[in-house]
């Protein structure tokens, strides 16, 4: 089947999905998930050259569709029903979103087909200041948005130094593993507590914890706690 879609024509994943549903003359409430999913994925394939951010939104929808399709392929297990209900039916959610989006898409079309001021009809552009002073020539009507705009320009000029600095943590899990290996090579038994400095940062704690787990996984060390809430001891295995 030749399948061609120009993706830059679509406003988003919902728009694309709606197009596929219409093309296949389906009803939003009873979409043939399997067919729509296949066509949706084919369309996604075509947009691989598109910019990543847009693609990301399309991919989330792809995942939802695949999820729905896989659920349909699985045999129904009555026992699992309750669980499913709690999690909410992704199909129902999607139908709701599609209906909502379809409404606004139609409303947008209706709006676009109105006789628009400045496009289809025009007003008298002359400013009637003949009687008054003309000193308001470069004055314009203002609102909150204009105030914000001015603010942005002012603040941009005088507060460039107020940027937020993020320091890059240099400690890596691999590094930490090496350090722990060294310590355990020197001592047969080590308490986990001894691995931390006096005031460890959150980052240090996480990295050390990951390093210890990794060493346990590769059976380089074992962890033993002899008493409940007692110290956890590290023993070298190799």
């Amino acid at each position: 089947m030749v399948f061609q879609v120009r993706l830059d024509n679509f406003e988003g994943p919902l728009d694309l999905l709606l197009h596929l549903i219409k093309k296949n003359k389906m009803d939003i409430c009873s979409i043939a998930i399997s067919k729509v999913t296949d066509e949706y994925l084919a369309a996604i394939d075509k947009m691989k050259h598109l910019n990543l951010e847009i693609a990301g939104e399309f991919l989330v929808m792809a995942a939802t569709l695949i999820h729905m399709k896989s659920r349909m392929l699985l045999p129904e297990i009555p026992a699992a029903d309750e669980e499913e209900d709690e999690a909410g039916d992704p199909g129902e959610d999607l139908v709701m979103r599609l209906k909502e989006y379809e409404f606004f898409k139609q409303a947008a079309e209706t709006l676009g087909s109105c006789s628009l001021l400045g496009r289809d009809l025009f007003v008298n552009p002359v400013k009637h200041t003949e009687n008054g002073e003309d000193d308001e020539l470069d004055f314009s009507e203002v609102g909150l948005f204009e105030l914000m705009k001015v603010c942005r320009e002012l603040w941009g000029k005088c507060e460039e130094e107020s940027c937020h600095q993020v320091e890059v943590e240099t400690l890596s899990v691999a590094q930490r593993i090496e350090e722990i290996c060294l310590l355990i090579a020197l001592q047969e038994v080590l308490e986990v507590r001894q691995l931390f400095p006096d005031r460890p940062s959150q980052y240090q704690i996480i990295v050390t914890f990951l390093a210890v787990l990794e060493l346990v996984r590769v059976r380089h060390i074992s962890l033993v706690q002899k008493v409940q809430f007692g110290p956890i001891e590290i023993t070298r295995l190799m």
Partner: protein
Amino acid sequence: MDITELTAIVEALIFSSEKPLKIAQIAELIDLPVGRTAEVVDRIRRNFEECPSHGLFLAEVADGFQFRTRPALAFWIKKLQKAKPLRLSTAALEILAIIAYRQPLTRASVEQIRGVDCGGTLKNLLEKKLIRIAGKKEGPGRPLLYATTDSFLEVFGLRNLEELPDLKQIDQLFSDK
């Protein structure tokens, strides 16, 4: 003042106002009851409407009155206009529709309905004065709320938001939820 003079005054007032003039504003300016004023305005509307040799008509938009060129003459006016005609993208129209029906709402809500980011278009609509910032939402982060403006009504030739098409349908859709 007789009705002829009143009609002339109100016609001149509507013509020279930058924004559509509301009946109440006109009534205050000419010191006449609102009902009487509405009659005068209607007289002007008929004067223009009933005579096909007029290229203008009195439009009722944003709860006010404004002279405009007849839509059928757009072709000729466009020949004259040097300024870029108003253009709204599909995205802009969709966002406008969402804001118009569900205002005030946050950018996140708009994006949830459309399924895509819309920061750029939102800014563009603010610049065109079709939408405005209508305060902040209660709750975490206090995000900005967006709503449509009177210019929105003017541009789309609507008297008020109740004139939006299918308002009932959308209400049903959301009460189903």
